[in-house]
């Protein structure tokens, strides 16, 4: 009889234990630690370029913060669109992320609205590296400020040349905005990319060039290149003397142009996973390792949390579209 009672009690206990176990297992996916597997960060540009370098630096900081290995995949093509599409259409499980520059994406969406990609395809993890777009001139040309250049352009219309580091990017939009709002008549020369414009500036072949900071920073530090203006304040620049350069807004052109590199996930990524990604990214962006990278690259890192970053990028798209309709079309 004791056995029966014992057995009866054990059965109830067993049932209780079994029920608890089932519940525990049912709850475990939610409690399971993300991330458990390798994370892939897609950099939609060729290896070796500026965005790639920043991408690799954040990837290594991300790896430390996440505790799993992080791999960079270069999927280049169509000005960053191929890689971005690849992530947007991929699995939304948080293991494949996109690292791209805000204005690279918004500029290509502005100039090519027929592309099958839009900001709605992504969830915004956060922005971690901001650099303004600046205007440079070879020191030999003698310009000390953008106002100088615009004055010359107004005095001799059609003679001043301003190169842009790409035909359809933030730099072109900046050039068009400056030309349109100031009324100065200068020639905009679209170069194929940063490397070619860099060469033209070093070789003193154009009056000025518009390119993302901090390209040519060391030459600017030495005085070979003059920074004559910038699209956004340079207060985060590691080189103090240049921090106070006048922005476009300072001289009466009400436009801000820069590029914030950020991490994006496919739009259907679960909230839990997205929250964890944002946590990891925040830690990575503020880590000592990434700060060190920033110091040597030229700008101190920032951290712009997901929602703020999304608002910023959407605002940028609107600005760009307005510039295009006002000054280019």
């Amino acid at each position, binding site marked *: 009889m004791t056995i029966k009672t014992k057995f009866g009690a054990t059965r109830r206990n067993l049932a209780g234990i079994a029920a608890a176990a089932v519940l525990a297992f049912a709850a475990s996916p939610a409690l399971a630690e993300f991330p458990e597997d390798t994370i892939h960060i897609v950099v939609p540009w*060729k*290896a*070796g*370029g500026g965005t*790639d*370098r920043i991408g*690799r*630096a954040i990837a*290594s900081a991300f790896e430390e913060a996440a505790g799993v290995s992080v791999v960079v*995949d*270069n*999927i*280049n*093509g*169509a*000005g960053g*669109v*191929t890689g971005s*599409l*690849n992530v947007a259409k991929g699995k939304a499980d948080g293991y494949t992320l996109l690292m791209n520059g805000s204005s690279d994406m918004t500029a290509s969406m502005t*100039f*090519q609205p*027929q*592309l*099958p990609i839009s900001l709605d395809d992504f969830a915004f993890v956060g922005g971690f590296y901001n650099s303004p777009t600046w205007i440079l001139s070879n020191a030999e040309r003698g310009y000390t400020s953008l106002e100088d250049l615009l004055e010359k352009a107004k005095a001799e219309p*059609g*003679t001043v*040349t301003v*190169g842009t580091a790409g*035909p*359809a990017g933030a730099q072109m939009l900046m050039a068009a905005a400056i030309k349109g709002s100031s009324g100065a008549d200068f*020639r905009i*020369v*679209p*170069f*194929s990319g940063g*490397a*070619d414009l*860099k*060469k*033209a500036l*070093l*070789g003193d*072949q*154009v009056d000025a060039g518009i390119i993302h900071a901090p390209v*040519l*920073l*060391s*030459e600017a530090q*030495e005085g*070979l290149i003059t920074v004559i203006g910038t699209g956004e304040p340079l207060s985060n620049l590691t080189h103090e003397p240049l921090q106070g350069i006048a922005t476009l807004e300072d001289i009466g052109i009400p436009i801000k142009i820069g590029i914030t590199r950020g991490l994006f996930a496919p739009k259907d990524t679960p909230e839990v996973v997205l929250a964890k990604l944002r946590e990891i990214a925040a830690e990575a962006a503020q880590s000592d390792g990434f700060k060190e990278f920033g110091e*040597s*690259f030229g700008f101190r890192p920032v951290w712009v949390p997901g929602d703020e970053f999304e608002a910023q990028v959407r605002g940028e798209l609107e600005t760009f579209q307005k510039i295009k309709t006002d000054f280019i079309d």
Partner: protein
Amino acid sequence: MEVLNGFAAALQPLNILLIFGGTALGVLVGALPGLSSPMAIIVLLPLTFGMEPLPALLAMVGVYVGTKLGGSFSAILLRTPGTPAGACTALDGYPLAQRGEAGRALGLATMGSTLGGIFGWLIAIIFVPLLATIAVKSTNADIALVGVLGLVMVSAFVRGSTLKGLIGVILGLLIATVGLDPMAAVPRFTFGSVGLLEGVSFAAALIGFFGIAVVLADMPLIGSKSFLTADKVSVQMPKFGELLRRWKSIAIGAVYGTGVGAIPGVGAEGATWLAYATARNISPEKEQFGTGHPDGILAPEATNNAVTGGTMLPMLTLGIPGDGSTAVMLGALVLHGIQPGVLLMRDESTLVYGILAGMLIATIFMALIGWTAIRAFIYVLTKDRSWLFPFVLVFATIGAFASSNAMFPVYVALFFGVVGFCLERFGFPIVTVVLGIILGPIIEYNARVALAVSGGEWSTFIDAPHRMGLVIALVALMVWEVIQHRKQVKQAKVTQPIN
């Protein structure tokens, strides 16, 4: 002297080991069709994070130098270049191998690469300041003119109908227009496809034309259990006397390679074709080019190794990459905390000269590795074609995919494989199409920027002495080509029996 400091730094035991390892890896990667130098260097990149900058760059330089020889080996044996730079070597290398002289062809390639690399290096080191100035002062107008010069030399590649050759070039130019307009960023001939927005991937087209088309063309031979060569092939390094006799081809290669490499924007791939064309034009045996003429191997080989010395210059003196590999190397420098740019030579002269010293050491290692590896490569020739072809196709697909980590270039490669096969069938030299694809974008982009900078003034192409010189050379070359062609036609008529 800083050069000696550089050598002292590069000759540390660990560094020598890294250079050797890198070069060996480079030769292997180069020989595998589809895998290229930038890819191998990228894979090395994370492995070098823990190293000091100099050892890291030395390993990469070794790979860079090695791939230039490896790529030629498969061009000679399989007519499928392992790297784009090796494509030109196939023109005379493959026919020579087919004649049973594969050992000689491989030997010529090895020595051509080595000597070109060494002389190119010497030119680069001696003329560092001059070349740095040329690199900075070169304008888009100059590059456009050099491109047109290359185009005019196209008849050097035509065997048979000149008309078909010219049609080939025009086809190549048309193919090159696909993609976004370089200045207005408007899509051209993309038919709504996102994949074509960046244009026809050059790597994919090359893999298609030279890899897949070859397999398609030789497929009928599979059933017959054919080998590429049945005779025993011996390794034959060219004798010193022969190399001395053929010094002109090597010199052309070294000068072109270093010069073109030093000017960012012309494109290292184009240099080998220019050198080949020039070597042919000055040779008394020009009709033999394309059938296995040794100068047709020495010239492009010398060029593609001299280019490595050339591209190092703008990379180290200006921070501007000349090709994909140097772009990754620049990235590596930044990741190691070094700022490339105009001041690198001044601030980090031991690093810069250490890298340059490493390049010379790598070239010598490349010769040794090449010499011993030739035996292994010849083994490939004794294998049945039906084994080799799947191997080639697999690697071609991997290469096309890896060029941008996407499937689209693979389809492009397959498409061009079929197109190339058809073109060859109808007697169109694929080579001229490739030339059009390479030179088209260079000429178009640079000419348009030159005109944009000058405000539409065409005089920008002749407003400097060297530009005038280029234009005169251009016109002279065209006149000369026409005269040559007339002579050929007359001779053909004379030797033709009168029916």
